Structures are given as structure tokens and as C-alpha cells.
């Protein structure tokens, strides 16, 4: 395994997903979401897993991870580990939430529970279909099914929740503000628009 050079992991780099986040305001939802899907699948961990886009609807998204030897969670049984499965379902459900919201928004996974309904087959890739079944102002609740081609013969079922962040610059990886700083910024918002510079703390 070769470790990619550190310059590719510089935080805050301006790849498409960060660009979409900074834009803040929702634009044409389907276009933005498709861009975001492409950006998500071509970067970082999801890209390394070889994640492929299969389809999406109003509140669902289906992705696939093909089998690879180094994803085995059991070297004797040659079955996929839970880690890639959770990453897949996390991503599929995340996109499903954006589809239901109708726009790209920053959000973080709060919890995910995975129940195995049967063991994965040897040397089989995995397909994950995530669905966002309920939205509140601050949460997106999701369910998902992991299968190997036949959704009526599922490997696992997942349930989970995402915490939503709205507004430009909010969310994971953005510069942190204490509640006090945030209140101060909000009270000055009308007079002085927030500059892009942060103190670089934390």
C-alpha cells in the first residue's frame, strides 16, 4: 500500500465539496447533488474504497463497493469487513438526505447501527441503498439496506441519524467559533459582513 503524499490531505483544500459548502445557498438541487455525488466519490476514503454510483431518487441513493482482497474482515472466510460496509451506507444515506432536502448541506453522522441479517458471501462486493425517511430542522433520519445484487436477500440493515448544519461556512471541518463568538458575529452581521479569515485556532 502506498501512502499518498501529505499535500493531498491539506485541510480546507478547495475541492468541489468544500466549494459547494461555501456557496451556502441552495441552487438547482439535482445538479448540485450530482456534482456533490461525483465530488464525494472521487475523493478520500470513499474513493479509496472504489465506491460507484448506481442511482438515486427523491429520498434514496444506491452505491456499490466492488470486492477487493484488502477489504476482507476475515482472511479465512474472505468476507468484507464491517468498516467498508458502514462507510458505504454512511455515504449512501448522506446523499439520500441531500436528495430529500433538495440541496447540498453540511451534515455529520450522529450514529449508525448495523445489523447483520446473514453473513456476507465470500469475495462478494456490496451494494448499499440508503433512504432518508424523515427530516427535522436539525436532523435527518435514515435507514438502509446492504445487499449483494438482490435487495430481497439483504446482508444487513442499518439505521442512523445525521445532524444537519445550515448556513455558509458551518459544519464539519470549518473554522470553529465559540457560542460567544458566534453571537458576537451574528449581532454584527448586518453592519460588518464576516471576513473569510479565521484565527486558525483549534
Amino acid at each position, binding site marked *: 500500500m502506498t501512502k499518498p503524499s501529505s499535500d493531498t490531505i491539506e485541510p480546507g483544500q478547495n475541492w468541489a465539496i468544500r466549494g459547494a459548502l461555501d456557496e451556502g445557498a441552495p441552487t438547482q438541487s439535482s445538479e448540485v447533488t450530482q456534482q456533490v455525488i461525483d465530488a464525494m466519490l472521487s475523493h*478520500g476514503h470513499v474513493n*479509496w474504497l472504489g465506491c460507484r454510483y448506481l442511482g438515486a431518487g427523491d429520498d434514496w441513493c444506491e452505491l456499490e463497493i466492488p470486492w477487493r482482497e484488502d477489504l476482507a474482515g476475515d482472511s479465512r472466510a474472505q468476507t468484507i*469487513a464491517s468498516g467498508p460496509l458502514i462507510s458505504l451506507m454512511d455515504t449512501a444515506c448522506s446523499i439520500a438526505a441531500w436528495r430529500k432536502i433538495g440541496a447540498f448541506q453540511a451534515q455529520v453522522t450522529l450514529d449508525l447501527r448495523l445489523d447483520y441479517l446473514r453473513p456476507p458471501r465470500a469475495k462478494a462486493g456490496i451494494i448499499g441503498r440508503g433512504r432518508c425517511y424523515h427530516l427535522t430542522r436539525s436532523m435527518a433520519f435514515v435507514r438502509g439496506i446492504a445487499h449483494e445484487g438482490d435487495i430481497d436477500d439483504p446482508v444487513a440493515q442499518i439505521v442512523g441519524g445525521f445532524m444537519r448544519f445550515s448556513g455558509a461556512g458551518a459544519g464539519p471541518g470549518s473554522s470553529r467559533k465559540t457560542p460567544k463568538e458566534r453571537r458576537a458575529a451574528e449581532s454584527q452581521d448586518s453592519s460588518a459582513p464576516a471576513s473569510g479569515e479565521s484565527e486558525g485556532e483549534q
Partner: protein
Amino acid sequence: MTDDGKQPVAGMACDAAKEGHQRYATLQAGEARIAQIAKLLPPYAHAMGIAICGLENDTPILEMEFAAHLQGWPGLFHGGTLAGLLEMAGLASVLTALHDVGRKENLRPINHSTNFLREARGGRVYAFGRVTRLGGRNAHVQVEAWQSDRHTPVAEAVMNVMLKRGAGST
């Protein structure tokens, strides 16, 4: 803002784990044990760069170092990588507990519930699984992952694992 500069701080978590092994002979036995447990980790763990960095109560502490292929949001570990690390730590603890009582069952996960508590930024993440039940048919593990401060976990998981006797896959 990678946490590269903070590595000595992160390393202290391992040193602290090793402090229990005061005598050299014990330490050596500990290293042999780490090598033995490391062989039990599956290919996924190696691909993720997950390694055993120390022992606590004779149970392995796992570590994972940040790399581009583990990234989710810019500069942060992908949640799935944390879940993967927690899974590996949980399984390693169960395997160790079984090994210590001379049992050789195959592990099959029943479920895995992860709570993401904080963002995990750059640097390293550590994980430790506590086997809260080791029964005849199943085991229950509680796993915690943390970065520079052991008492500030970034993620937690609860796992139930089926213990299957025999080499067969049924």
C-alpha cells in the same frame, strides 16, 4: 493544520499503556504478545494502516494514522474509518480474550452500533475494546476511540459478536 506537531502527545497514550509493564521481561513478553495478536488482524486492518500500539490489561490498544485514503471532510477522518477502527479494536479484544482461555472460535459480527461524538482531525486515533461479556455463543464488546485525550472520546461502538465453533463456515 495537521496534527503532525502533536505526535509526541499522542504517543504518550501508548507510553502510558506500557507503563504497567515495569520490568523488562514483562515488556518483552508484551511485545511478543503484540506480535501474536497482530497476526490475527485481517487484511482490512493492514490496508487501513491500523496497528497495535500497546497493551492495557493485556488487551491491545489499536492506532490508526491519518492519510489521504482515510479522509472524509477535508482534514477529518471519514466516519466509516472510525467505525472500521472500532470494529478492529473490538474484534482484537474478543480474539485476545478467546486466545487467553484457549478457545479458537470464528467470530461473526451480529451487530455494530457506532456513536460519533466529535470530529477526528488529522493525527492519530486510538481505540480500545472492553469485552463486557464472553459467553459460550456470543460476546459483547464496548469500544472507545480517542485522539490526544483518552477521556475525550471521538467515537464509541457497542458490538455483539457470534462465536462459532469449528473451522466450517456455517
